[in-house]
C-alpha cells in the first residue's frame, strides 16, 4: 500500500491547531492577569519570538520535501508471471 507524503501533514496540522489555541489562551491570560509587569510582557515577547522562529525553521526544512512522492507500507507487491495458471491453482 502506498501512502502519499502529504498525509503526514494532517496530524501535524491538528497538533498545530491545538497548539495555536492554547498559545493564544496562554498569552491572553498572561497579559490580562500579569499586571502588565515587565516580566509578563518580556516573557510573552520571548514566547512569541521562539514560536515564530520555530515555525519558520520548520517551514524552511519542510520546503525541501517532495510532497507528491509516496511511501510503500508493508512488503512491496511482486508481479510474477502466471506460469501454467499457478496463481489460480494455489490454495
Amino acid at each position, binding site marked *: 500500500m502506498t501512502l502519499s*507524503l502529504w498525509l503526514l501533514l494532517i496530524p501535524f496540522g491538528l497538533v498545530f491547531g491545538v497548539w495555536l489555541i492554547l498559545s493564544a489562551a496562554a498569552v491572553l491570560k498572561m497579559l490580562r*492577569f500579569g499586571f502588565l509587569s515587565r516580566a509578563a510582557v518580556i516573557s510573552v515577547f520571548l514566547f512569541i519570538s521562539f514560536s515564530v522562529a520555530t515555525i519558520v525553521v520548520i517551514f524552511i526544512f519542510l520546503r525541501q520535501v517532495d510532497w507528491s512522492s509516496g511511501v510503500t507500507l508493508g512488503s512491496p507487491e511482486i508481479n510474477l508471471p502466471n506460469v501454467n495458471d499457478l496463481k489460480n491453482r494455489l490454495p
Partner: protein
Amino acid sequence: MKIQPTIPNMLPGEKVILMLHRHGFIAFRFFMIYLFFATLPVIGVWLLANYTTAFADPAGFVYALTVLLYGAYALIWGLLFFITWLNYYLDIWIVTNERIINIAQQRLFYRVVSEQKLYRVQDVTWEMKGVIANLFRFGNVQVQTAGEDDKFVFEHISQPEKVAQTIMSLLESIEKQIGLDKMAEVEGDLGSQAESNPSAGGTKP
C-alpha cells in the same frame, strides 16, 4: 518612585504592602527540568545524523517525518514551558493595608482568587523546612483567620519570617484602630437597645 500595582477590586485608600511569588529556586528547578528536555532532541539529531541515513534524502519519508516530529516537539516544549512559567508567575499572594489576597493559578484554565480582611487574622505562623529551604531562605507562612477552618498558606515564599513580621505589625496597627471603633460601636448598640426596650435587660427596680 515605586509604582503601585493594580489588584482585583482595589478599595479606595488601599495600598499594596507585599506582592509575593514563590521563591526563585522553585522557578530555577522547573527551568532545569525543561533544559533537560531541550537537550534530548539535540542528542537525537546528532545520533540520527551520524548513525542513520535519515537526513541523506531531504525529499524522503523519514526526513519529512523527522522534521514534523521535531517541529511538534519544539512547539509543545515551548508552550509547556510558557504555561509552567505562567502558573508560577500568576500564583501571587498580595498583602495590602486592609486585606490579604490569595491568587492561585493552578492550571491554564483554573484560577482561584480568595481574600480575607486583615482584621480577621488571628494567628500567623512561618516555617522553613529542609536544607535547601534554609540555605536559600524560603518557606511557608500560614495565616489563620477567625471563624474559618481553612487558612491562607503562602507557599515557598522568600524570607517568610519578614513576611510574618510585616503581617503581624499590620495587624497590630489595625487592631489599635479597629479596637477603638468597635468599642464605640458596641457601646452605641447597647445604649440604643436599652432606650428602645428598657425591660429587656438590666435589673428590675
